């Protein structure tokens, strides 16, 4: 009896802790620092080098407030004008499984900050880093790769894609940039 209670309490506890992480609203957090993020894991010498994951960065895509703020800033910084609601326009779609410069949150972060040669402007110094992380987390949610229980279903706007809560995670692959694109 007691052991069963204990087990269920533990289970409950775990769910709840996940809840804490999801629900925190950090206004004052220092942005995770990253260095050495390459858009590709292809490396001369034969051993691929996976992206160095930053656990603090990963929290952004599990936190509802950050994702929601990311959605706001995605609009504020005109990301939508090139990527629409994820379907793409001048820029490539963000809701599919193709990532020219890598789909990990760290890679998305560096794509936003550094810019990419075929038209993606660099936002370095224009968007404070914490907000870039938030935008990156929101971008991850478009392809279903942010935590499902942390994403908003829709915004108060014209109906666009499927509700983000319903988008299945898209298996990602990293691709080097195509020529001429």
């Amino acid at each position, binding site marked *: 009896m007691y052991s069963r209670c204990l087990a269920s309490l533990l289970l409950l506890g775990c769910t709840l802790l996940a809840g804490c992480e999801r629900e925190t609203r950090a206004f004052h957090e220092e942005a995770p620092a990253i260095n050495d993020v390459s858009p590709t894991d292809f490396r001369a010498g034969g051993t691929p080098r996976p992206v160095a994951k930053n656990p603090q960065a990963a929290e952004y895509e599990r936190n509802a407030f950050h994702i929601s703020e990311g959605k*706001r800033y995605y609009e504020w*910084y005109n990301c939508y004008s090139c990527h629409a609601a994820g379907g793409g326009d001048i820029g490539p779609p963000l809701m599919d499984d193709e990532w020219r410069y890598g789909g990990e949150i760290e890679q998305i972060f560096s794509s936003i900050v550094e810019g990419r040669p075929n038209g993606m402007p660099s936002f370095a110094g224009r968007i404070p880093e*914490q907000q870039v992380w938030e935008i990156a987390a929101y971008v991850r949610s478009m392809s279903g790769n942010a935590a499902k229980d942390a994403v908003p279903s829709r915004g108060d706007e014209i109906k666009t894609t499927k509700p983000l809560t319903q988008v299945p995670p898209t298996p990602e692959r990293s691709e080097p940039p195509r020529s001429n694109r």
Partner: protein
Amino acid sequence: MSGRKHICAALVVLLAGCSGQQAALDAAGDQAATIGDLWTLMLWVCGFMYLLVLIFLAHAIWRARHALDAEPLTHGSGSRAEHPLRMALGGWVGLIVVGLFVLSLATFFIDRSLAQARTDDALKIKVTAAQWWWKVEYEGMAPDQRVVTANELRLPVGQPALLELHAEDVIHSLWIPNLGGKEDLIPGRINSLLLTPRREGEYRGQCAEFCGLQHAKMALDATVMNPDAFTRWRQQQLTPAPAPSTPEQIRGHEIFMSGPCAACHQIAGTPASGQTGPNLTHLASRRTIAAGARPYSFEDLRDWLRDPQSVKPGNHMPVVQLSDSDLNALTAYLDSLK
């Protein structure tokens, strides 16, 4: 503050009938004055009724002193008092009905008069509420005479002002108690609010509908000015921002234009054209910063720029890491935007 001071202050507030720069009964405009009259009527009528209830209750309790243990009265009709009480109840209900009738009628006519006020010569102002600040746009004769400011509303005394109310995100409510009642700003709807200020002075408005994290710090400085001063202010607001003059201001200007600031804020006359944050063209001429979160001063502005999230946690102005000298330069530049 000492306790005694508090008590004194409380008494003063009670007696003075709520005067102040954000007080409903200290009317500085037609609408607030009319509503204030209605309040007085209500207070008298309701106060009178309340007094009657208390007297009756007190009398019942006073009478009970003489009641001794006795058998319960199981049939109401058995009481000698039943009939007079019924008469009294009739009178009481009659009184309530008359009172309510008077109040309803007063309400109805005052409401009508407020709704039918003339608006042809009104100053037209578009107010847009966003989390957690106010965007204020004065419509001009020509589009280029349009004054855009934030978190302040300046009105010429005696001229009605028709506010067109928009909301960008959630529901807000615009309330300047000294001038008049509140009106909600609702996404997807356009409401309007008519204010006719009658007394010059500085007042304060505040968002009155809960709108999220910083609902508490979403204030609006309302200033009622004489018409000449208003015209001068308006002309002055139309001028582009002055160019930075001191070396420090020039450096501050560069920091502003090359950093994140310019992505959200507009300063007319410079490349900064962001619209998501308040227009800063004449920031230094305002009474407060960050929608009333702090009074305007060089030091407060610098504190705000250093760490907006401490002053107003959760607002959308990010913390930007700047060295002390850069911070001073940036503050110096913004402080020059008179």
